[in-house]
């Protein structure tokens, strides 16, 4: 077992089954031994460690909660959540890679795809032979995806796609894209191989956040796909939004991992660092920070345990996911900022992990539904009145 000690103030360890703890420990050890030694260099270079993709596949993290018959691990949703938590303890870019592959590419193929689409793509995506991306957001349409301008037109026995997508994780390194486009004014999903003529995915550079992650535009210029590329049944925004619920569930878990990583670093540092003749952790202001973080992280952990069990029971709602994503990412960002401060000047060095987490979380609080949009989703749920219409 890895020496990394996760905060467990409310003794939640025995609330997880042996399998769930084994899955967590397997991913935790891999992240400590294989990922953390590399992340600083990749973050500085602005690259994702693609050399680790075969190991991630071998570990079984891609689409881990999908059935074994498609080459996946068939885990429950608590396990999937704990995987995200451990991956994001490493870096939000690592968790993003796995979230996109599993929740935004494999899940819609599994949930909406034809048997042919599932057989063609799921085993390849599970084994890392293929990488996928999810094209919903556009340059001018983020929080209101219904306004998208990407269009599909029926053309003989296939479709022709035109449009631009933006802020697409893994776009440049993908073999297949799930593209959402309007067909006769209605949002539809397409499984688009990235080597088709007219498809390009230039990388978006100059980010200060999620640097160890590939972010891209998707440019579709008369991309012709066969009739078999469309998801046959799912129509309207419900399609992409249900995918996002899957991914946000993983993000909410992941954010606790990032918060725990920062807390762990801040606690260790403040116990060792002496100021005015005693450890920083012995100062009242530092203890307030540690107490606040420990409390907020514990609340986040409790929320995720319950949400995971609800998802496994099949009763989780998208509003609950909104609450968890909104709360936990905001909580993680506040923890990262607090620990960055506690680390003093060291906090701006990439030799410490917290600054990297802090910059990453500025993306995580924005993508997959901004903090404000989730506020409105929760407000809608509790009041019954939608504020965004």
């Amino acid at each position, binding site marked *: *077992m890895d*020496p990394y*000690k996760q905060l467990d103030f409310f003794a939640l360890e025995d609330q997880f089954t*042996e*399998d769930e*703890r*084994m*899955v967590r*420990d*397997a*991913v935790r*050890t*891999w992240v400590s031994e294989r990922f953390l030694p590399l992340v600083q260099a990749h973050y500085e270079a602005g690259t994702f460690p693609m050399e680790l993709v075969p190991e991630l596949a*071998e*570990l*079984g*993290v891609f689409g*881990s909660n999908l059935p*074994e018959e498609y080459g996946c*691990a*068939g*885990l429950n949703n608590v*396990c999937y959540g704990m*995987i995200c938590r451990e991956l994001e303890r490493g870096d939000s870019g690592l968790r993003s890679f796995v979230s996109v592959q599993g929740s935004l590419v494999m899940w819609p193929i599994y949930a909406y795809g034809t048997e042919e689409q599932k057989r063609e793509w799921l085993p390849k995506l599970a084994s890392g032979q293929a990488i996928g991306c999810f094209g919903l957001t556009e340059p001018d349409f983020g929080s209101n995806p219904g306004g998208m301008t990407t269009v599909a037109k029926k053309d003989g026995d296939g479709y022709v796609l035109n449009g631009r997508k933006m802020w697409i994780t893994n776009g440049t390194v993908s073999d297949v894209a799930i593209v959402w486009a309007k067909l006769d004014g209605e949002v539809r999903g397409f499984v688009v191989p990235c080597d088709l003529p007219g498809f390009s995915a230039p990388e978006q550079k100059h980010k200060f956040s999620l640097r160890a992650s590939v972010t891209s535009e998707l440019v579709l210029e008369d991309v012709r796909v066969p009739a078999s590329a469309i998801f046959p049944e799912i129509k309207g925004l419900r399609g992409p939004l249900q995918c996002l619920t899957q991914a946000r569930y993983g993000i909410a878990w992941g954010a606790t991992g990032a918060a725990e990583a920062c807390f762990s670093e801040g606690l260790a540092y403040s116990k060792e660092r002496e100021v005015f003749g005693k450890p920083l952790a012995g100062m009242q202001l530092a203890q307030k920070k540690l107490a606040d973080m420990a409390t907020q992280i514990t609340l986040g952990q409790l929320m995720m345990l319950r949400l995971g069990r609800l998802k496994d029971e099949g009763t989780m709602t998208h509003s609950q996911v909104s609450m968890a994503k909104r709360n936990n990412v905001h909580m993680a960002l506040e923890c990262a900022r607090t620990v960055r401060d506690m680390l003093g000047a060291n906090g701006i060095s990439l030799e410490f992990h917290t600054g990297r987490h802090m910059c990453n979380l500025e993306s995580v609080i924005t993508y997959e539904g901004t903090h404000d949009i989730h506020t409105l989703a929760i407000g809608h749920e509790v009041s019954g009145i939608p504020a965004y219409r």
Partner: protein
Amino acid sequence: MKIVACIKRVPATDVQAKVAADAKSLDSAGYQYMTSFYDEIAVEEAIKTKEAKGGDVTILTISSKDATKEVRECIAKGADGGVILVDEDWMNRDCRATAKALASKLTEMGAELVFMGRVATDRDNASVGPMVATYLDWACVTNVVELEVGDGEATAKRETEAGLETVRVTLPAVITCDKGLNEPRYAGLKGIMAAKKKPLEEAACEAADNQAQVLSLVLPPPRAEGRVIGEGADAVPALIDALRNEAQVL
């Protein structure tokens, strides 16, 4: 070939040692456990041997029932099943009692090749492997860093203080595994799911009484604080003097 990897469940490396009220044992309240480091190498070698030569691998341990997590983690890496010889006092069992119980079960299982770690990372005895081989009247090669298993025999390289020794043994044999023999694989998530379906037997442990009795257990004294001898080149003579006469390392 019936291959068995014996593992020991040991306290995680970061636990704080605390002497129990009896002043003879450790207070294990709140301990987290892990598979002993060298035993992970033994499990890997057992699975590699199965993959190369066929057969099946069983994980064997003496422990409380709580060892299911550690045993299943080893099964998840590619073993075929596990056996826990249930002994609630496993932490305090001496090497002889442990070896006798293991040898008896290994005979019952029909083991032909047994892998163990060079030493368990808690008590540091490095004795159980050779003792098991002795009770079984088998060959034993310790501290193995390279192994080739043939038909009815094996060639092993072992680290000694004098250098690298190459040994050929006939099987059955006990091999104790050292760092460098292999790089233990990770338990994959599919393996963890598959491990749930593989047999994990809990058997009664008929361990002999301890022959070695622990009389007392005292933690090492806390390390004395460091001392700054001086600064710069002027302090070198005093430093050499301290190293020679106080620390006596020169």
